[in-house]
């Protein structure tokens, strides 16, 4: 379970410095606040795009967390020492993905009540299924984001490159998560024809997790 030790190390480092956590959380809250001024929170239209709005915020805030995933290893050449250790690329990747997943989920759980207040949306009765969709969507985002974080870690423009690579590729997962979140925030259950979105989200997570685990070793050792 070396990947859990890597995840614990990353979480401990981040909770001590709070570098990406603070930046990501403040960014998410500011976007939520600004959008609440742009739209009339009482209008029915808000319910229709609530899921989309929430996931846009998560995607923007997520990029700040994901950028730090491998960049955290750059000071003191820690990445070299990790790659030279017996830890496989897949274990290193999995540990880093889990750490980013936990951090992003913390941001999302904090943002949800704030979103509810700003946009006058009742989310509490759907809290559990919402958390499930958040977990599935966030896993897809962190898997892909961590892979691109490894790919761009040595680039000077990595802060720009990561979102440019990440957002287009995660569109299927993002669309599914947006749709499912909107259904739940409207107070409905996921069923009937909407199941296809849930399948898409789960399929995306499985495919990109497998693909990333297979590719990461080649990315790390050039």
């Amino acid at each position, binding site marked *: 379970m070396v990947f859990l030790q890597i995840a614990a*190390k990353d979480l*401990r*480092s981040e909770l001590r410095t709070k570098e990406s956590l603070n930046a990501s959380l403040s960014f998410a809250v500011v976007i939520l606040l600004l959008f609440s001024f742009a739209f009339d929170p009482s209008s029915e239209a808000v319910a229709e795009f609530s899921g989309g709005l929430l996931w846009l915020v998560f995607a923007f805030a997520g990029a700040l967390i994901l950028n730090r995933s491998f960049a955290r290893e750059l000071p003191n*050449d*820690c990445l*070299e020492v990790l790659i030279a*250790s*017996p830890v496989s690329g897949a274990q290193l990747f999995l540990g880093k993905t889990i750490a980013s997943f936990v951090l992003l989920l913390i941001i999302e759980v904090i943002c949800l009540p704030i979103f509810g207040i700003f946009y006058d949306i009742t989310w509490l009765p759907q809290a559990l299924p919402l958390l499930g969709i958040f977990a599935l969507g966030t896993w897809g985002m962190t898997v892909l984001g961590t892979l691109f974080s490894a790919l761009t870690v040595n680039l000077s423009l990595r802060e720009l490159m990561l979102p440019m690579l990440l957002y287009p590729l995660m569109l299927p997962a993002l669309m599914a998560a947006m749709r499912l979140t909107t259904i739940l925030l409207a107070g409905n259950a996921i069923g009937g024809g909407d199941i296809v979105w849930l399948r898409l989200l789960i399929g995306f997570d499985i495919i990109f997790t497998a693909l990333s685990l297979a590719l990461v070793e080649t990315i790390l050792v050039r």
Partner: protein
Amino acid sequence: MPEPVLAVDHVYKYFGDYPALHDVSFSLNGGECLALIGRNGAGKTTMLKILAGLSGAAQGEVRLFGDSPRQASARRRIGLLGHGIGVYDELTAIENLTIFAQLYGVSATVARHWLERTQLAHVANAPVREFSRGMRQRLAVARAFLHDPALLILDEPFTALDDRAIALLQGLLAEAKAAGRTIIMSTHQLREAMELATHVALIERGKLVHFGERTPEMLADPTYVYRTFGAA
């Protein structure tokens, strides 16, 4: 005949069209210590990165203990001390060593032993960012030796070390050599390197222009290798 600890066989490496390493071959056995010398940009660090499994060779083969450097079994037996210290500033000294002990599958109690050996036990619970440069370097040495590696790969290990860290590292390297460990180090500190080395390799513009046992002439005059085998 036993398999060498480290075997480099006709290795090439290119950065774009630039040949960083050109047909490099040599091997080392247990208890041997190689001083890899050469000017800046000659290819020493590239060679060491390939040996440590951080980079792949374009052609040729590298084998550590009979395996590819990317095999976990080979990496478990390597101790790497590169340009960076390879420890986390935001974690404490003991946390740093405990993490690496876990990654190498050795007991966490070894971490405390190495803090004592490097005279850092009194700051075990202090974050590394509060350490002086010398203390950080000693922690890096502890990290590299933590799992009792059979092969030590050291990239300019004496550069920027304070007197105390140099003495500590020299002592540990001499001890490792006596215990049959294999050492390969790139360095510009010729005198320190020659005292320890059993073999010397000179690399120039990616080519290995000399590889052989260290002779008494090299020990008496460390520039002898450059003058005798190097380009003018």
